[in-house]
């Protein structure tokens, strides 16, 4: 009996855990397959290069693609420098025991765990209601409402905040991968700490910074919750021209088309195709980040 139990467990535990692993792979394949099958027929060049027509029931997603692009560009311009500098501080300047470094580390961990929707609330409460209204009051005495409302700048800054931990973590990893000998050689030649960082450490970790940026862009392109009420628009007849304009975004477009469009069934094709575009975009970004990280690791192993 004991022996029978043992054989049974010995067979079933590896088998069952293997099934769970298999299940995960299958789920991934199903999600991807469903999106590709559903969206393939609608996905044409015209779909990518024209705006929505006939009250959003026909036409393409060009404004949403441009909106997403602008969002991630402004986001990276704000987030990547701050993230890189923070990573430099944490890996090059701060000693592990210093209180300031521990505070910053704690803040980065906390930022990574805050729900996306809370970032949206923060964007609304801080950027729009506090900073935006403040700027309006200074510029025009509060007579004209320009910055105190949702727009692409506030949405991008909110998103930059959300993706900051992503940048910090991967840049720090890259900085740590720079061999100690390189730094010591530079310092021994008489270079100061900053010279060493700027001329030796940073050029050697450029791939890592790039990886951080790519991962942040991939995360930012996929998140919808933070921009729900900080700048994304249902439909706009024109592309955003200034930082104070609203914008259309791919993820928001999927959400709005599949839940709040007047005729949900008729626009299934558009929904699937938009999802496919977003999925391809994030996967392309993630795979290039994975490839770059792989390159960094093999280089340090050598």
């Amino acid at each position: 009996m004991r022996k029978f139990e043992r054989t049974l467990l010995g067979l079933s535990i590896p088998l069952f855990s293997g099934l769970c692993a298999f299940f995960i792979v299958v789920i991934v394949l199903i999600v991807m397959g469903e999106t590709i099958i559903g969206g393939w027929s609608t996905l044409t060049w015209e779909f990518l290069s024209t705006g929505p027509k006939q009250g959003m029931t026909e036409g393409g997603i060009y404004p949403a693609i441009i909106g997403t692009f602008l969002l991630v560009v402004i986001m990276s311009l704000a987030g990547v420098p701050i993230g890189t500098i923070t990573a430099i501080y944490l890996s090059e300047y701060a000693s592990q025991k210093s209180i300031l470094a521990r505070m910053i580390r704690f803040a980065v961990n906390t930022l990574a765990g805050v729900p996306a929707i809370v970032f949206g609330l923060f964007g609304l409460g801080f950027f729009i209601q506090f900073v935006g209204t403040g700027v309006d009051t200074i510029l025009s005495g509060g007579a004209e409402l320009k910055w105190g409302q949702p727009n692409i700048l506030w949405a991008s800054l909110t998103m930059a905040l959300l993706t900051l931990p992503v940048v910090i973590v991967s840049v720090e990893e890259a900085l740590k991968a720079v061999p100690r000998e390189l730094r010591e050689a530079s310092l021994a030649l008489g270079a100061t700490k900053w010279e060493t960082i700027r001329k030796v450490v940073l050029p050697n970790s450029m791939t890592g910074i790039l990886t951080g940026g790519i991962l942040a862009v991939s995360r930012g392109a996929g998140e919808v919750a933070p921009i729900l009420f900080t700048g994304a628009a249902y439909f706009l007849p024109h592309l955003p021209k200034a930082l104070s304009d609203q914008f259309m975004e791919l993820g928001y477009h999927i959400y709005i088309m599949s839940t709040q469009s007047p005729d949900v069934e008729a626009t299934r094709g558009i929904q699937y195709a938009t999802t496919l575009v977003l999925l391809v975009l994030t996967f392309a970004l993630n795979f290039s980040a994975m490839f770059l990280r792989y390159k960094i690791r093999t280089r340090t192993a050598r």
Partner: protein
Amino acid sequence: MQDLQAPKKTETTLQSISTTSNTTTPLVGRRNNDGNSTNLWWKKRFRLGEFLIEKAITAISFLSFAFIALIFVFVFREALPIFSVSPAKTTVEAKQVPQETYGDESSASELQQQVDERKRSVENLEEEGATATNLVSKTWQPVSSKPKYGMLPLVVGSLKVTAVAVLFSAPIAILAALFTAAFAPRWAKELLKPAIEVLAGIPSVVIGFFALIAMATFLQKTFGFEYRLNAFVGGIALSLAVIPIIYTITEDSLSRVPKVMTEASLALGASKWQTASFVVLPAASPGIFAGILLGIGRAFGETMIVLMATGNASILSGDLFQPVRTMSATIGAEMGEVVFGDTHYTVLFFIGAVLFLFTFCLNAIAEVFIRQRLMKRFEGQ
């Protein structure tokens, strides 16, 4: 600031600063004698630049901390009026209830029901105006002539969806991680790791869309429940977002179990599966627990998936197959239409503050489990 630098660094910067003041000629002389610098004027300005750069870098990296503080301040600031707008007629109740409400929202729902029973008598007295006094009532009806802001259905909704998600994803993720760590042949590992990374990389709005279109119909056909979108469907959809988190952290802590332990077990004659389930798995348990906590935090705070896949009806019931509206989905769905500064706006910010506090605590506990328990167990021996 000074004491945070390495002591040697401080000395040199102090030297360079004091040399600028021209009163300490001996110092300058000493430096020249050391042969450190032949061109002193150039060196001085240079050191000052170095000092400024370090301070600037420190200041910029401090921004992360400032942002967290700002998030705290601004989310709570907008939620604060909830405790002060209460009508004058029920001053006695208003004084007692805020404490009860506050403690309740962030903790379990059982307590809430107790409070709710006590509250019912008060509720009749006060029907207009949403304040702390009726936050614990049973109806969420923010847009009506007599708005009701009872958060109870939302809290229960969030808990239901989170429970389904974690109960479904935790076993799968943990077993899959055990498989990778203990049994998997090389090719299976090469397949599973990218699959997990891909799953983690799928945007939540895509998971929500998939759940809304395909998964809900499939599950309805399989289980035959009445409403196509409900807490169960939302929970299963959420588990797609939770699995990568639990898997990654579990796999990480399993692979950190010292080789000595597994080898000792194998040497004593235990088989591979015995070692895996009686040695490796228990040893990594703090890490696994932390992974589950982080998974709960993710499930509780996730917005887009539940917004699209749970049906969004604020019904208070224990039935898993009823449509629910979670806390995060409520913010996502309603914040776009509220008037700035009114009670509805304030209540939504209050919900956000509760979400923030809850996930914050979960993350902090998970951190303790990983850093203190797990690391001590593996490195302290």
